[in-house]
């Protein structure tokens, strides 16, 4: 059994303008020790998916359905007391913005200890000791002294490390990281990713990493979910998504990336904007931006189905296999040809 099993998850928000279908039928699972990466543009539902799993959406005006089984227990229907026991202890989350997700008026040490005290029967002293251990583990120099500091005394990279230390303080089985490195410089990003990788090896935790940086995806993920307009456009192992992408949206994402290893005069661009989730387009939600659009795309929403020869690689597209293979090879050959 998978550690986390999300089945047909839907999250709708009631707004003054109507119902926003922020997540519309998402299914995936994460195994112990594995890293799942969720990619997509802003507003594609990546973050809402994770917030729903964590039970962090506002109760009012949110309608959730489906299942999110964590070790067999459904997180969506669970009581709030049980959820609080799991949250921060078995499942922890690293938020995107380290500037705003720490409490500015409490010392770092106290904030770390609070997370331990909430979930373990220990004294404040033991909790502080545990906090210090983690602060050292995430590579903060002079950790003893830094425990006494306030968040504003830390740089962005250091604050993000504190966030990671806080998330890991209770050895979670599942770590959800929402754009953990987006606000950071490449050098700091490399440090943070190496750190998460080491911690995963040590504790055999599962990680869900939300990002729009395909470079980060390629280097950290085992499995990838590509989301577009609240739905899964394509999902599969990282090698199959990068090696044999089967959906024009994924091609667009891969092609639009300037990269160090190739030399392209022009980037592939996906024309237009992501659609409004209030009134998503009929049929395939990508059809207004898709260069391969056919009549059927405008009428029928393509189901997520396995591609031939790989049962774990799912894609939602009406295009025939032959065209998809040919176009995907063209894209990959294009970048490779430019590289050589």
């Amino acid at each position: 059994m998978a550690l986390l099993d999300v089945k047909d998850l839907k999250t709708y928000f009631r707004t003054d303008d109507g119902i926003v279908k922020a997540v519309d039928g998402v299914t995936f699972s994460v195994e112990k020790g594995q890293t799942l990466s969720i990619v997509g543009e802003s507003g594609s539902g990546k973050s809402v998916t994770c917030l729903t799993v964590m039970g962090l959406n506002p109760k009012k005006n949110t309608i959730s359905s489906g299942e999110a089984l964590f070790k067999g227990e459904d997180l969506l229907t669970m009581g709030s007391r049980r959820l609080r026991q799991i949250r921060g202890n078995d499942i922890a989350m690293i938020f995107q913005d380290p500037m705003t997700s720490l409490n500015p008026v409490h010392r770092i040490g106290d904030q770390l200890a609070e997370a331990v005290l909430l979930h373990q029967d220990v004294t404040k002293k033991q909790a502080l000791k545990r906090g210090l251990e983690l602060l050292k583990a995430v590579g903060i120099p002079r950790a003893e002294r830094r425990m006494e500091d306030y968040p504003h005394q830390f740089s962005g990279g250091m604050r993000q490390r504190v966030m990671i230390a806080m998330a890991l303080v209770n050895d979670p089985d599942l770590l959800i990281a929402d754009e953990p490195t987006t606000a950071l410089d490449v050098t700091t990003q490399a440090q943070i990713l190496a750190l998460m990788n080491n911690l995963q090896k040590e504790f055999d935790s599962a990680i869900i990493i939300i990002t729009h940086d395909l470079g980060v995806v390629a280097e950290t993920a085992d499995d990838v979910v590509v989301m577009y307009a609240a739905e899964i456009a394509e999902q599969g192992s990282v090698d199959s998504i990068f090696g044999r992408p089967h959906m024009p949206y994924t091609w667009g994402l891969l092609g639009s990336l300037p990269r160090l290893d190739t030399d392209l005069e022009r980037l592939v661009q996906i024309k237009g904007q992501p659609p409004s989730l209030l009134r998503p387009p009929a049929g395939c939600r990508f059809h207004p931006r898709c260069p391969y659009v056919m009549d059927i795309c405008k009428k029928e929403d393509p189901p997520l189905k396995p591609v031939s020869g790989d049962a774990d690689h799912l894609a939602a597209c009406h295009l025939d296999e032959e065209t998809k293979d040919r176009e995907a090879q063209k894209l990959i050959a294009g970048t490779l040809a430019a590289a050589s």
Partner: protein
Amino acid sequence: MAQTEVAPASTDGRFGPELLVVEDLKKHFPVTRGIIFQRQIAAIKAVDGVSFSVRQGETLGVVGESGCGKSTMARCVMRLLEPTSGRIVFDGRDITKISRADMRPLRREMMMVFQDPYASLNPRKRVGFIVAEALEVHKLGTETETKRRVQELLEVVGLNPEHYNRFPHEFSGGQRQRIGVARALAVNPKLIVCDEPVSALDVSVQAQILNLLKDLQRDFGLTYVFIAHDLNVVRHISDRVMVMYLGHAVEIASRQQLYSEPKHPYTGALLSAVPIPDPQAGRERKPIVIEGDVPNPINPPKACWFHPRCPRFHEGHCDVVTPELTSFGNGHVAACHYPLERWPMTADEMRMASQTSSAR
């Protein structure tokens, strides 16, 4: 420290004469204490002796970590900040000391595109006004001409000219950045300084803006100074690249040279830290992790600014003698006592090389 050598611009004939020459530019922000009698107790050396030049039609990329002085440098070049010392020559004219009134007609020749498309457009003004404002300030054309010009510009940057009367909030991030580009283009500038124009955007939208900037350069012969922290983006758009660290230019080279044979260990570390969007190559990649954060510019390290984090640090040399920008041919300059012999290199090789060469 004397660091007056100007990096020679690229020598190939694709570009015109030097449009912008910056010599030994410094910008120090005073740190004061006291309420009535403020005395200066220290200075933040945001930019501390940067020299470079940009030729007409060329794109100079500027990279570095946050806090390295990229944006301050750009604002000094635009004379939005008063430089502490140094010389800025634009189109053959020294603009370092000229008055605001004299600067005004020059403003239309150098424009800026800002990082945050949400903060850089006035939310209470219509798009037509935002784009037309520069035209009105410089009294270029009548009302009808201005309107026609604005609609033309909106079309050039790929927006619907009918959106003339809309407000910024009605547009998405990518569209807003297009408005920012249209505004910069309005007065036919020679130079556009882009300060992180795509870092707030999604990859697909980022590609649209990068393609747009390239097309505009081709069509209008624009010169760009393009600031970004994303090395992939800089590589894509630049002809030459300047790497900045703690207010100094540590390496300037053509794009080809910088990315294939970097000389400064900092450049090497930056390059090795960029994730590659290819699962196989990516997993094998071993980034050269440089420890710690950028030092505080109030109290920067002595001699070589990078020595506390450098894998090739030599005690008694790097922390005593300040490295000068030295030439490696073809306009490639770097400020390092122990430049990299080859590339790519692993972290161990970088360090071992430093031990063997310490004999000299």
